[in-house]
């Protein structure tokens, strides 16, 4: 299913990530998933938040550059080959490019969560539903 992801530009200098996380804590915002993509002197922090619009707004007000994008959220079996068989292969076969993805824990046993940014979210959603 499609969900909103909040991405934040954070310079690689001590304390900046902490400051951003403090902002979210101040909003009592739960971070469901987080991944950092690192460049040479900055990082892109991508997050799935309990309330993306409110979280993004608070982060912007604190002086960060933030953007909201639509990503896909999917469940997969927490077992060897789960990612390959249920996500990677079907998307590749459908000719959909994977920009990036990150996985996180699912509270129900035997399952894992994955967040994906793909070239064609609508079609990817259909492929993954199958």
């Amino acid at each position, binding site marked *: 299913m499609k969900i909103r992801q909040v*991405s934040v530009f954070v310079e690689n200098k001590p304390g900046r990530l902490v400051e951003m996380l403090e902002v979210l804590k101040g909003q009592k915002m739960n971070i469901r998933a987080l991944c950092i993509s690192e460049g040479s002197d900055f990082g892109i922090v991508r997050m799935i938040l309990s309330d993306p619009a409110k979280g993004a707004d608070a982060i912007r007000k604190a002086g960060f550059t*933030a953007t909201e994008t639509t990503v896909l959220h999917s469940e997969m079996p927490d077992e060897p080959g789960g990612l390959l068989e249920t996500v990677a292969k079907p998307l590749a076969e459908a000719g959909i490019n994977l920009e990036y993805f990150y996985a996180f824990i699912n509270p129900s046993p035997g399952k894992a969560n994955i967040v994906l940014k793909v070239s064609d979210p609508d079609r990817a959603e259909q492929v993954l539903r199958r």
Partner: protein
Amino acid sequence: MIWNSKYETMPRGELEALQLERLKAQLSRVYEKVPFYRHAFQQQGITPDSIRSLADMSKIPFTTKQDFRDNYPFGLLAVPLQQVCRLHASSGTTGKPVVAPYTANDLRMWTEVMARTLTSAGVTKDDVMQNAYGYGLFTGGLGFHYGGERVGAAVIPTSTGNTKRQLMLIQDIGTTVLTCTPSYTLILAEAAAEIGMDLRLTKLRLGICGAEPWTEQMRTEIESKLPIKAMDIYGLTEVVGPGVSVECPHRCGLHIFEDHFLPEIVDPQTGARLPNGQKGELVLTTLTKEALPVIRFRTRDIASLRAEPCQCGRTLVRMTKVTGRTDDMLKIRGVNVFPSQIESILLQVEGVEPHYLIIVDRERHLDDLEVWIEVSEAVFSDEMRKMEALQKKVKDEVEATLGIGVRIKLVEPKSIARTEGKAKRVVDRREL
């Protein structure tokens, strides 16, 4: 609109005759009253009588910023102090300021050229003019103030700073004309966006921007972010303050008020006079100033002149927009670099804000150029690939233009200090 048709549209021949007559009188006066000029003339082996035509100007020695420093505070004063009725001073970044005294006639002349300036830019008596140039020692505040009053506009003397109050006045009083530095217009736009104020819903229509070099790209940026036509003006403390030249509605250069200020362009290295159309250092001579006449002043500003008649009807020569100064010029690995060149490149990249900082350092005896760019939402992407592509694009364009390597650093918004006066664009950490 033209404030003073007699002088602003005078046939060239007549204007040049007037200039020569005024120049001769001015030279005789400084020779008699100011020992500095008398010595300079004598060293060159000339007297005021040696100047028989405007072309003879090149025989006269230059006056430089250093001469102002050496003669601080009153060495260049050409009248007794009792005749001085106002003093301004430049914001000298190092050492002593430049002191600019005015007689009553000087102030009248200044108000006249400022009235011409504002009229040319489009100000009328129906306007509400919010003057956000600094009041005080700086010539900007009072220069615009009296010019605005002379034209009959309602002048709000806000001076610089207190951006929130500036916005409140724009909204509540219905300001139509904003006078401030170009970088301050963008600070206002940014602050308005922050508080959710739509400047398009105000009565603002015109901005008159000067006191720092700015590029055409910056003008486009200003005009897209504020509902104003941004007009360029030029002036300097040593000569009069603002009021030396201004754009007309055709915006094809700045008309110099030549009946008061005589322009020349010279080669910054050799001092040789350059023909019209060629880029070099602007040199100005005042023709009517009483307290502080200045002869062949090296402005350090880079421009060229055009004498062809303008569609607006003014016969006054036009100078190109000043986008660089000889002393802003950075020599990096032997290459001459103007901050304005880098600014032009940045602003051509979609979404890049005109907030940048150029850092020059020397590592292992090699000059190192780094440019910081603030990442706004317009250029930010959640995909690292796109951010790296942006960095590379700017890097490639800067390197192609300057021919030297550069590191582009993406920084968070507001990392680069905002100033309400002249913007600081360069940090030179080299110890030469």
